[in-house]
């Protein structure tokens, strides 16, 4: 193994990316904050005068606040697509509640004797509002803006899931790639940004109340300036690539595309969950998918042939702790019943049923096992318990549902499922820390993400699936006391995908075709 790169080296090496992500992050936060202030402030003032509406408006804003951020992004994608628009919308919705609520509270807590006196002295509505109510409510309003800003810095990391950029690209890439430096390179600036913005606003808040009038001018100007960073328009591109954070950082992913194919394509980072749909809706042209993904079929995409073999084989196998195999020897025969049963096309079909036809993974698993004569009713034994983990995508859910049926039908063991363990790193760590007993893993992932061998070793093993499997099996046994059981059969490798109709019209069948198309035919300026 080569020497581990230090965090500093990583930051220096990636400083361009880090800078652009930070700018995007600040931009997202500020744009959404400015919009939230522009809408939330008048709304707060308005409901401060209409008590009956106050609970309704605050209630709606409160409900928006409770929607988990990733779910809110999910809701917005069908309506607004991907990129900065849904990201800013989501952040705006999150920032709204603290701003409306604090404006409302701030205005309401102004001593009525003071506003009455103001009116009695002959000030009109706007003079009372700007001369008395807003200056007196300002500290409370600013506290709300501060809360909103900190929330937004945090939530803005999720923008990386929908191709809106920001420091989430490093954070999620790092989690997916088991690269601590990458996680920290995203997380530390995000945390610093939150502290910085919070302290900056705290400073503004502490400035003498009496100078508040000046602040009403300075604040918006400052915010708009910061927002400007983000709103610089991006040049029009002919083909746009959308890759997952994981793919972006992998040698057998984007890095390999660049070094081996010399592929040069403008890219955005996007979550696997929305990527296929975005491609289908022509928001993206080239995506990094998995070759057995059901959505491939659902969205009429085709995979480009990897004619230079940069994507190593990704045969799926159950990865299991050796202790549990030794403890319950009957476990392995039960699990091995699935070995060799599922081909690529079968897996794509099963995934399609779950991803697109919305069948439950449990039902799809049971139906499949029935069709192969492997289904047995659970024995409801209580000899012990096996904890099954999975990453968060359909294929893994289907596989662990199958293992659940096989284990409970063929042994006296019970199973518990820990689904939704995120990416490779979380699953692997859970397994290493004895929090789960097994999960389905892919040889290529085990090889490249967890073992991280030298490039020469990769070269040696990745061309041949058998060799790769043997290598991974041996190393895991030695390093982690984990066992790779027999492969299930299919190869869920990385693949570049395009819309079938577009690929055909451009005559792109292989990645080399794609590279040539991009290299020869620069978009006109």
């Amino acid at each position, binding site marked *: 193994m080569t020497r581990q790169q230090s965090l500093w080296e990583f930051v220096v090496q990636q400083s361009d990316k880090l800078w652009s992500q930070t700018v995007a992050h600040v931009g997202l936060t500020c744009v959404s904050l400015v919009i939230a202030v522009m809408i939330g402030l008048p709304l707060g003032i308005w409901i401060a005068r209409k008590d009956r509406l106050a609970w309704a408006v605050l209630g709606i804003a409160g409900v928006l606040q409770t929607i988990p951020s990733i779910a809110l992004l999910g809701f917005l994608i069908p309506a607004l697509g991907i990129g900065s628009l849904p990201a800013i919308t989501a952040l705006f919705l999150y920032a709204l509640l603290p701003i409306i609520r604090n404006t409302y509270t701030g205005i309401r807590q102004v*001593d009525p004797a003071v506003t009455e006196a103001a009116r*009695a*002295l*002959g000030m009109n509505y706007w003079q009372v509002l700007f001369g008395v109510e807003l200056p007196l409510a300002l500290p409370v309003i600013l506290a709300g803006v501060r809360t909103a800003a900190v929330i937004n810095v945090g939530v803005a990391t999720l923008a990386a899931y929908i191709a809106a950029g920001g420091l989430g690209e490093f954070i999620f890439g790092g989690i997916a790639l088991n690269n601590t430096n990458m996680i920290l390179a995203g997380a530390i600036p995000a945390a610093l940004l939150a502290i910085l913005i919070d302290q900056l606003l705290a400073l503004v808040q502490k400035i003498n109340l*009496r100078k508040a009038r000046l602040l009403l001018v300075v604040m918006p100007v400052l915010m708009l300036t910061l927002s400007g960073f983000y709103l610089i328009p991006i040049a029009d591109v002919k083909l746009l690539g959308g890759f997952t954070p994981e793919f972006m950082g992998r040698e057998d992913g984007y890095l390999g595309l660049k070094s081996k194919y010399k592929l040069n394509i403008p890219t955005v980072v996007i979550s696997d969950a929305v990527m296929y749909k975005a491609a289908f809706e022509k928001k993206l042209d080239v995506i990094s998918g998995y070759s057995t993904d059901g959505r491939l079929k659902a969205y009429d995409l085709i995979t480009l042939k990897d004619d230079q073999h940069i994507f190593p084989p990704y045969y799926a196998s159950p990865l299991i702790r050796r202790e549990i195999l030794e403890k319950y020897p009957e476990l392995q025969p039960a699990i091995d019943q699935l070995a060799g049963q599922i081909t690529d096309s079968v897996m794509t079909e099963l995934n399609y049923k779950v991803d697109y036809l919305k069948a439950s993974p449990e039902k799809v698993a049971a139906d499949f096992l029935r069709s192969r004569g492997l289904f047995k009713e659970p024995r409801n034994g209580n000899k012990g318990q096996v904890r099954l983990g999975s990453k968060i995508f359909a294929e893994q859910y289907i596989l662990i549902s199958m293992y659940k049926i096989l284990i409970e039908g063929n042994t006296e063991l019970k199973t518990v499922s820990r689904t939704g363990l995120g990416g490779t790193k979380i699953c692997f760590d859970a397994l290493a820390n004895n929090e789960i007993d097994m999960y389905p893993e892919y040889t290529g992932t085990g090889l490249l993400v967890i073992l991280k061998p030298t490039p020469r070793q990769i070269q040696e093993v990745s061309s041949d699936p058998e060799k790769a499997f043997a290598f991974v099996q041996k190393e895991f046994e030695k390093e982690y006391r984990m066992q790779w059981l027999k492969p299930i059969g299919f190869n869920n490798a990385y693949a570049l995908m395009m819309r079938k109709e577009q690929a055909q019209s451009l005559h792109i069948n292989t990645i080399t075709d794609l590279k040539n198309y991009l290299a020869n035919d620069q978009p006109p300026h």
Partner: protein
Amino acid sequence: MIRASHISKQYGDVEAVRDISFEVKEGETLVLLGTSGCGKTTTLKMMNRLIEASSGTIEIDGKDIFTENPEQLRRTIGYVSQNNGLFPHFTVRENIGIVPKLLKWEQSEITRHTDRLLEQLRLPVREFASKYPDELSGGQKQRVAVARALIANPPVLLMDEPFGALDPVTRANLRQEFRELPELKRKTIVLVTHDVQEAFELGDHIAVMDKGRIVQSGTARQLLFNPANSFVSSFFDHQRLFLELNAFTFHDIWDSLPPEKVIGSGAVSADLSLWEGMQQLGAGQTELSVKRENEIRLVSQTLIFQSFNNYKNTR
């Protein structure tokens, strides 16, 4: 001059003020006296349209206030409320300068007027002009509020329990000061209070209000000795003796006092109220000489009481 005719204020089914009429002559002070919830503050706030009357007319110096722009109107009417309503984010000087600023006076003019008023109200400019309201005592705040109401020299002044939030000592002092303030001598004033003593001290006329109506209006003496009904008389009952002694001066009982030849030094004026005379006697003195033109009367506490009772009985 203020003339209110048949004004009423309704909130839904509740009639807060019912068919009230009164007149305040130029330079006079009308006190609206009553218990809380009687409608006196509502009546006051209708004068500058902080509350819009449901019906009736109000004229100030012959002009119907309902035809005027409310903001313009209010700039010509001074207003002092119980809880001073000073802007916490404005200095004393800025607070006083609010109306002139709305009226677009020159800044130097505003400063000149402000500083003159501050000195008159015993708030030295150097010490107080740049202070904020939260740095002032209750009495000082109330003085600033009065200055703020007076700065643009409005002919009419509305005061809602102006001394209500102060302790009794400060209240009495401020009232005294207030009576002597030359600025206020020429103003037409409507003042709201629930304090009978304050009403008698400051009011040329007093209107006693109950349940949204004026029950009786007149001078202090008329109210004391010819109450229109039991509500009015009960209003004064628990401090009747004090109020009556306060309402009479030595002029009233002069004829029943025995004449005295000796002209002593330190005689007090017959303009003094009997209560004030009693106060002087209470302070260790057994006899007090009272002077009217070149006559002198020598009085004791007993003598004052006797003459006072005689006078009351013979009226």
